[in-house]
């Protein structure tokens, strides 16, 4: 019921701003604490692209790389959209069979 009243007053945001603050802080502090400059992250990204590109065609434009908090450890997350596996990779796999 309270929610309905809040909605009437236009206060029914999906997430309370306090929780948005918490989530944003968590992400920014992972970067702060890791002490990695954006430049280094870009170098890592370029190197990953180099390695992956040998085997796959990837969409470099939509590629995302970020640090994330996984309970008490920090994880490096890379999201790399793959367009297709390169033919020579498939054939070399076939050769091994």
């Amino acid at each position: 019921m309270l929610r309905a009243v809040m909605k009437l007053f236009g206060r029914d945001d999906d997430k309370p701003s306090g929780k948005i603050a918490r989530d944003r802080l968590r992400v920014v502090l992972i970067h702060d604490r890791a002490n990695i400059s954006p430049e280094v992250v870009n170098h890592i990204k370029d190197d990953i692209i180099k390695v992956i590109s040998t085997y796959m065609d990837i969409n470099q434009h939509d590629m995302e790389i970020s640090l994330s908090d996984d309970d008490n450890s920090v994880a490096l997350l890379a999201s790399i959209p793959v367009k297709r596996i390169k033919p020579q990779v498939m054939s070399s796999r076939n050769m091994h069979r």
Partner: protein
Amino acid sequence: MSDVIVVTSGKGGVGKTTTTANLGVGLAKRGNKVALIDTDTGLRNLDLLLGLENRIMYDLVDVATGRISYKKALVRHKKHETLFLLPTSQIRDKTAVTGQQLIDICNEMRGEFDYILIDCPAGIEQGFKTAIAAADYAIVVTMPEVAAVRDADKIIGELNRADKDRIKLVVNRIRSHMVDSGDMLDMDDINDILAIDCIGQVPDDEMVVTSTNRGEPVISNKKSLAGQAYNNIVGRICGEQIPFLDLRKKTLFDKLKQILHV
């Protein structure tokens, strides 16, 4: 033997000086001999918050350079007779006092005082490094806001790097009605993120402003919730186990909700 405590925050305006003044008065009220050292050289304000601004003769720079003894520079509080202020210079800048000089001054003072509180300037530059040099432990003051918590995290990192690993947290200016509605970081969020021992949760209280206007720290005002919260921090510093205050003010709406069971 005394405890030397630095009150720091990184970000400005979160209430370092207010906290220092209140804890100083509170500790003195319990019969401790307390010295407060202002290290915010060039931007001194601790004198103003304690109502001592008209009684300053010498300052920290005079003591650090060996021109006079610390005893000559100390200003005794008239109302709280075991409370002393070592003010800093309003004319000089942060480079005028070094960490080693502050360590030497504190070591000389340790025998005479139960507690020495150092009010740290904002920032992480030379002034901060000087202020923390002499401290046995640190009280980090923050607020339930993203910038203040981020800066507190940075300061905790800097303190650790300087081998100051005894750190306590004070969260200041909590607006409980905003916490209740989910529009402010709550204590669980902050404890979770910063992961250091919290010794104080101080509400945002207009009486802090009015008492600052008068130069009488709010801890002396028994009606003030912030004053009670500061008093509890003092107890915890002295080793007492005190539960945190319930900061929620019951509004008419709350009472109505209670009646309607919603």
